[in-house]
């Protein structure tokens, strides 16, 4: 069943002097419940714009986005978002950050604690509950951000290049962590990235974006069984998909570079 439906969504930005930039051509796109879909595209292609529209932080110029049949009008707790920049509240501890949405909902202290303890353990941050975000490394901060989004129990998890600022080793471990969480919890996930390995490794389907103005150029299924082990990254099947996506992305990156 399709949980998320993007129907004819386009986005045009208007500059201060009235000039317009078309960021997204009309897009139709569906995500099934409990699916893990990555959106892969060169930088500046509008993939983040699409994610922000789904999150309700930006509005489509045309078209609409439906979540469980309901048109999205603005941001809400039913769509958890993890951003590329570190967006933990610096004045709150790790545990308080994770409880932010729960407190906003008026959940009881005991229940808040139970949930935050569960997700702190899940992202491997036990012992850091009372640290402030700035006392943690970038990877630990993003793990907290994931836990904060999951603690809210959203219908869909939206991630906008969440590991983009991390070093390569940390990034790979974070992918395995997120995939592990998905494999056990089966949340619907929409994950934006420009990293081909990342896109294939976690996803059941990769949607490739064109250069700006963005549209979905092609969708490639990734049929590796779950749970996945990191060693699949060196398998011939993985290499084959990677080669294909590399070609697709290369053409778009070149198109983008010529702009």
């Amino acid at each position, binding site marked *: 069943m399709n949980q998320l439906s993007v129907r004819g969504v386009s986005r045009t930005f208007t500059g201060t002097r009235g000039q317009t930039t078309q960021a997204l051509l009309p897009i139709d796109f569906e995500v099934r419940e409990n699916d893990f879909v990555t959106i892969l595209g060169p930088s500046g292609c509008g993939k983040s714009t699409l994610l922000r529209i789904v999150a309700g932080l930006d509005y489509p110029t045309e078209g609409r986005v439906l979540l469980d049949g309901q048109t999205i009008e603005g941001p809400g707790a039913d769509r958890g978002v993890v951003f590329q920049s570190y967006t933990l509240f*610096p004045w709150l501890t790790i545990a308080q950050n994770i409880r932010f*949405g729960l407190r906003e909902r008026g959940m009881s202290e005991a229940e808040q604690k139970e949930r935050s303890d569960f997700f702190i353990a899940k992202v491997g941050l036990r012992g850091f509950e009372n640290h402030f975000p700035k006392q943690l490394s970038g990877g630990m901060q993003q793990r907290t951000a994931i836990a904060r989004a999951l603690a809210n129990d959203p219908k869909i998890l939206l991630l906008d290049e969440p590991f983009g600022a991390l070093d390569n080793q940390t990034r790979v471990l974070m992918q395995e962590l997120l995939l592990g969480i998905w494999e056990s919890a089966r949340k619907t996930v929409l994950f934006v990235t420009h990293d081909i390995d990342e896109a294939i490794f976690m996803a059941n389907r990769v949607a490739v974006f064109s250069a700006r103005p963005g549209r979905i150029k092609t969708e490639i299924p990734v049929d590796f069984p779950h749970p996945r082990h990191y060693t699949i990254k060196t398998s011939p099947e993985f290499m084959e998909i990677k080669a294909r996506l590399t070609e697709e992305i290369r053409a778009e990156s070149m198109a983008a570079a010529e702009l």
Partner: protein
Amino acid sequence: MDATPVMNSPKPVISAGPVASSSAPHRRRALAPLEPVSTRARWLLGLGFFVLFVVVWSFFTLGGFVSPTFLASPITMVKEGVLLFTQYNFIHDIGMTVWRVFGGFVLATVIAVPLGIAMGTWKSVEAFFEPFVSFCRYLPASAFIPLLILWAGIGEAQKLLVIFIGAVFQITLMVAVTVGSARRDLVEAAYTLGANSRGIVMRVLIPGAAPGIAETLRLVLGWAWTYVIVAELIGSSSGIGHMITDSQALLNTGQIIFGIIVIGVIGLISDFAFKALNRRLFAWSTL
């Protein structure tokens, strides 16, 4: 996973200062740009200028280069200071001045901080108040003194109002700017976590701006001290400013200088206290 947190607790930094300088004495480049200086050297240098200042002052006054009518020597100043406390109940003057500063300042804070937060949060509120407040900010508080005497007499209300006028517009504008420059990504994150407008204001904008607001208050408290003295110079029967005007009539420069120094010392103490309080309350912002 990366299990070691990046800890930057301030503790080791403080103790590292003197240790580092004593372990590598031959590698010190004291005058290299941006080279840090040890805590001990910082204190010595800071104190050094005070000493130098007093030495130069003593040289000119005690050496007879300046007439004692116009400038008292440090020794006379200290003597006059003791007299002020023992004979003229100077502690009462100090108490009056301190209460005026804090009274006017607290009054201004109570009005300006909520108004500033509202202006920073809602752009329509800002558009309504900002031009007027910006205009008022440039009105010199001391120029209001004659008017305020007409309106409020020469009592305490007039003194408090001078401080109030001097502080309220400044605080309002600076708080509005601090709140308005909140990190947009944190606001967006809060929205996606289900926060409503009230949640954004109470749980993102205000806590995020709090250290900046506290810093603004610290700055403006410093300015309030200059306003209070001016307010006390005119139409007053108590306070440090009043003592200074009295001493001027008697050509007692020792007392005037002593009064000025007392103001400086109190200002310094309140500033230190404010800084320490801010560091304590907003430990997260200095991590």
